């Protein structure tokens, strides 16, 4: 188990708001989580729950305007990333923190060959010569399992398949030996068989290189096989946080339970049809004053409409933002 006493990344009270013509969108509200060195943290939640915005906020990657990171601290190696100036922040981006994005078809620049795109961060962050960077780029392509690496460096993105492009993206993210790799739904846009290959590759790379990984997905099934810990996001908030086994065995938030039901099962009794979560995700046009899951919750209580639940401890490593996990509330109701 990775050491959680000395987290490499510690996010507290992050809040990101978008200023739009229709008013403010409170996309990320009071999000806190930490990441231990070498740990693989899964982040799950349906589309629009604020997973991407959270991760982009960490490194100031959201265009501002419209984005405004209002509150919080992001401690990384003793510094608050939200307070760094752009020059220092750029050294972290791609140098100490690598990013892999969802859509490999559009995430690479179509007019430059992949060699140049891998070498760019090497030359910038590691100050490598052209020759050294080219050698390292070839090494990286081999590392992510692209055959004929030397030749492929000269190929353009359109000459690669989707899965191969995602491998190139991973090579770019890993180029400068980052301490943290943030993978934002890296397999969502890929075929199922390719997804499995990329997952295998990531597990492999993490064991080999030992960096910490934040793996974002909307698919709990993917998380089950790879993550150490999981945070579940809903409506721009963390609604549950637990080690992966604990989460699957003992989900404490009604949203997590609903998510677990949506995983198609191969073994055991078949459900009549795939379950879906009824209702709509919340509209985030103001700071939340009630539980964001209220409208879709089948165990809602009167208190859920009055207050937004904080994260209550379920046990030492497990918490959930639900009044059903609040000992006071349970005692009161019981």
């Amino acid at each position: 188990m990775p050491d959680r006493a000395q987290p490499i990344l510690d996010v507290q009270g992050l809040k990101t708001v978008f200023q739009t013509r229709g008013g403010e969108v409170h996309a990320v509200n009071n999000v806190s989580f930490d990441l231990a060195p070498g740990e693989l943290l899964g982040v799950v939640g349906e589309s629009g729950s604020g997973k991407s915005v959270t991760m982009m906020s960490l490194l100031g990657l959201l265009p501002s305007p419209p984005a405004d990171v209002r509150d919080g601290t992001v401690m990384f190696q003793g510094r608050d990333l939200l307070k760094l100036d752009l020059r220092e922040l750029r050294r972290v981006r791609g140098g100490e923190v690598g990013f892999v994005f969802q859509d490999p078809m559009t995430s690479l620049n179509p007019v430059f060959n992949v060699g140049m795109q891998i070498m760019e961060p090497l030359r910038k962050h590691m100050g490598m010569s052209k020759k050294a960077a080219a050698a390292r780029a070839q090494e990286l392509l081999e590392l992510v399992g692209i055959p004929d690496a030397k030749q492929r460096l000269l190929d353009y993105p359109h000459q690669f398949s989707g899965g191969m492009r995602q491998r190139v993206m991973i090579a770019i993210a890993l180029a400068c030996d980052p301490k943290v790799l943030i993978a934002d739904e890296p397999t969502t846009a890929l075929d199922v068989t390719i997804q499995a290959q990329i997952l295998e590759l990531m597990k492999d790379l993490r064991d080999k290189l030992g960096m910490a990984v934040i793996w974002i997905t909307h698919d709990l099934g993917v998380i089950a096989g790879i993550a150490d810990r999981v945070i579940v996001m809903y409506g721009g908030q963390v609604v549950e946080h637990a080690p992966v086994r604990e989460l699957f065995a003992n989900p404490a938030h009604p949203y997590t339970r609903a998510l677990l039901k949506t995983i198609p099962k191969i073994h055991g009794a078949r459900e009549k049809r795939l379950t879906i979560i009824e209702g709509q995700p919340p509209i985030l046009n103001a700071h939340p004053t009630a539980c964001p899951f209220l409208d879709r919750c089948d165990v809602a209580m009167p208190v859920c409409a009055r207050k937004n639940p904080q994260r209550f401890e379920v046990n030492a490593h497990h918490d959930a933002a639900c009044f059903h996990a609040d000992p006071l509330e349970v005692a009161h109701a019981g």
Partner: protein
Amino acid sequence: MLTYTFRRLLLSIPTLLFIAFVIFMLLELAPGDPMGQMPLTIPDEVKQRMREALGLGEPWYIRFGLWLYQFFVVEPQYWIDSAFGTNFADGKQRIISFQSRSPVFDTIAQRLPQTLWVVGMSYVVGVAIALPIGIISAYRQYSVFDQAGTFISMIGFSVPPFFSGVLVIVIFSVQLGWLPSIYDTTHQVVDWETFKFQLRQMIMPVMVLALQTTAQVSRYMRASMLDNLGQDYVRTARAKGMSESVVVLKHVVRNSMIPVVTVIALGLPAIFGGAIITEQIFKVNGLGQLLILALQGADIPMVMTITFLLAVLIVLMNLIADVLYGVLDPRIRYD
């Protein structure tokens, strides 16, 4: 790419022949008589004989064939002769102007430098101003700079050169007296002073023509930049820690230039067309003025040749645009 270019070059031959035919027939069918400006005192039968001496008695297909032969065979032979001292063109008739009775290409060669200086320079200046405007306008969308750029482009789009040309003459030559209103084509640049004079007399025509180019190209560049600034690869470049100048000037501009290069290449013939009017206004005796005078005098060989050269330029620029597109965008394969 080479085979593609070669194939396109071959294909452009029938295109050009067809264009030549259309221009010829249009001139043939248009009213106008090379003798129209002769004094009325010349008897009709003399005029008739003069027409025949110009070759106008022959049927149109003979004259068209002769023009093609002269344009594609005799003239090149003549250039080869004068370049290498050979004598392929000996005794062969070049294309002769009705008005001046001298070879059309000699006159064109005299006039071309003036047009190239003014038009070519205005295009270079126009594009050189337009690209940064487009880039900054897109990067700082809706800023004061962007709004100003939009306003200037609107002027460039909506005010024709025959108006803006006269306007700047009135302001800078007549009212302020800073710049000469007439372009002196006999002026020779020999030293710093004469160079300064050349610059001063070029400023107005160049600026009037450049305004149009700037307006168009900057709009295209801005739109193309905006398209690309929102792309995922831009986020990737930032996530790699690249500085904004690398992100914008390398990643985004390189992609944005792909459609804009086409616009620039295809816009060049259009600016030559626009120069016809501008040259009239500033009294630049370039190709534009030559064409107007030839039209007025029903100088068919001259009009035919200049118009056809413009057509060649258009076809050539289309070809160059397509080839450049393939060079700039690795996704395009022509074979």
